[in-house]
């Protein structure tokens, strides 16, 4: 019977094809699962807390949240990769609101938590001054991703007699001892500005940076046609703007941060002064450009390190940061915060390995000692510290506002 025969043929062929497809599918399934690596966020039984101190609210929160998120990413990565056997890292982030008093309270809080074996932060040099002694007394290591005030590591007389005051203080950002002069060289030689009006916010960072800029600018033959200090708690700079306009300056150098720098630059230009506005790493933020408006074209900032997007070592960091879906950008110090956390993780690893796989009773002191000797390839390049606790990576970049974004125009490295 032809109909029945055809059915049988169909069934047999269907079985054969199904079997072949099943065999293929099983093979492919086996193939697909061979590299399957289910990562875990748990590294082991002991929890080590790494404190993060930064301005998480207020005007400077864009930079602070970039630091916090990047620290979080470093800890997640270390736990996933089980970088230290038996240790799970955790961050505890406290908001210093860019205020020294809040920073000091946070330092005391970190010291009181016995699980905290290191702290990353703060952003502001003035806040760091209030925290250093608290940490040093407790032998608790502090690694700042952003402080640039030279005195923090090299003592108050750093220009004539460098002395390290706090053995527990380290930083991954280079200092204003290099940043100020490098900016002066660029403004004088490359931007060809010979008459500069220098303004600062009277804070540790701002006044220090304005000072190192001024010294070098004068040595090069430039003229400082005026100086002013502003009150960072106000946003009305009309009186200063008028003084700048009447000074004949062709550039303004500002030692301070972007929340004031943006409105200051805008008001000076709106007053009719034909100037280029320049500043340090604390104005190197997209927020400055937003605040300064369309007149910010050609303005100049310097910032620590090479442009992070140029670093092969930063590619993975940038990809992972995006994959984590953080709401805020990593900003100027994200890569440095990641490296600061990683320096502490590397130190914990060394201490644990030297103590038969466990944390010793004097873990804080041991971790501080170990940070001094870390050396690894980080997001921002080679990470290690000199005899003052300063980074050995002394690179700087000059940026200019082009098409509404900070664009790198010159990079330099201190090799002295």
């Amino acid at each position, binding site marked *: 019977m032809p*109909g029945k025969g055809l059915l049988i043929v169909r069934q047999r062929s269907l079985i054969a094809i199904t079997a072949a497809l099943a065999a293929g599918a099983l*093979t492919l399934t086996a193939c697909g699962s061979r590299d399957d690596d289910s990562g875990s966020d748990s590294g082991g039984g002991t929890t080590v807390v790494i404190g993060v101190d930064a301005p998480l609210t207020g005007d400077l929160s864009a930079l602070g949240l970039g630091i916090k998120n990047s620290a979080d990413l470093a800890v997640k990565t270390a736990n996933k990769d089980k970088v230290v056997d038996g240790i799970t890292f955790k961050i505890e982030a406290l908001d210093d609101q860019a205020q020294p008093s809040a920073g000091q309270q946070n330092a005391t809080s970190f010291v009181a938590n016995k699980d905290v074996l290191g702290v990353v932060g703060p952003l502001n040099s003035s806040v760091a001054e209030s925290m250093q002694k608290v940490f040093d007394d407790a032998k608790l290591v502090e690694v700042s991703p952003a402080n640039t005030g030279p005195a923090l590591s090299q003592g108050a007389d750093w220009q004539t007699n460098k002395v390290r005051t706090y053995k527990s203080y380290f930083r991954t950002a280079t200092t204003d001892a290099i940043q100020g002069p490098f900016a002066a060289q660029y403004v004088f030689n490359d931007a060809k500005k010979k008459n500069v009006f220098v303004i600062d916010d009277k804070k540790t960072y701002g006044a220090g940076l304005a000072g190192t800029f001024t010294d070098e600018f004068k040595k090069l033959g430039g003229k400082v046609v005026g100086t002013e200090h502003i009150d960072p708690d106000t946003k009305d700079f009309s009186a200063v703007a008028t003084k700048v306009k009447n000074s004949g300056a062709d550039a303004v150098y500002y030692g301070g941060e972007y929340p004031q720098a943006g409105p200051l630059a805008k008001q000076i230009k709106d007053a009719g002064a034909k100037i280029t506005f320049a500043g340090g790493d604390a104005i190197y933020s997209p927020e400055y450009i937003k605040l300064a408006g369309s007149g910010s074209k050609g303005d100049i900032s310097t910032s620590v390190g090479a442009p992070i997007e140029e670093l092969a070592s930063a590619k993975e960091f940038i990809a992972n940061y995006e994959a984590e879906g953080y709401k805020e950008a990593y900003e100027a110090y994200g890569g440095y915060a990641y490296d600061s956390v990683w320096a502490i993780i590397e130190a914990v690893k060394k201490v644990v390995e030297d103590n038969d796989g466990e944390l010793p009773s004097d873990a804080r002191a041991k971790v501080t000692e170990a940070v001094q000797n870390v050396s690894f390839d980080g997001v921002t390049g080679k990470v290690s510290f000199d005899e003052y606790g300063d980074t050995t990576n002394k690179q700087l970049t000059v940026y200019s506002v082009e098409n509404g974004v900070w664009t790198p125009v010159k*990079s330099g490295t*201190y090799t002295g």
Partner: protein
Amino acid sequence: MSGVGPVEPGEGTRAWDAPEPGAPLLAAPRRGRLARLYARRRRSVLVTAIAAVLLAGGGYLYATRPQEPPPAAAVYPSLVVDVGYLGEEPLPAGASRGAFSFAVKVTTHSGPPVTVLRVTQPYSGISLSSAPRLPVRTAAGSSHKIVITMHVTECANVPQNAGLPFLDVTLRNTRAMQVHSFILGERYAHDLSEALRTYCGSEAASGV
């Protein structure tokens, strides 16, 4: 006994599961050309289908085989090169008055070779020459000594006390060509300032 039984088909209705009178018991499907062809070539078709599946599986396995990651792109030359100040050098024969010679060591730490294309300095009152003549190529792990001679052309445009003077060095590797500033440090600043002050100071005193 209670309950409602199945509704019987009434007039003008029919049960759909009952065959129509006169309908064939099972309609033999009509065999198309493809079916007839398949029936004749059944073995070949099966072999071909299995071969296709295995080929596809093999292809997938090959495409997704574990592979070494592609070699990382070379990094920017400024990130693998050091330029360090070695100290003053004797002036080359025939150097003009007011010249100042010093040596730098260019070291490439890793990656593909880096070529030093040009060395300049930022002050308009000074010109510069170097020996050996540039370009100089430096392989990973090796260094080159370059002697630089600065010639003062105009004392008015020379800073005699720069704190952190630098050299602009044009570097090239397979990744990029970059002009990078190397700030050679306090010893260089001191030696340069002293040489410039000595020459330009005497020029000023002699009224030239």
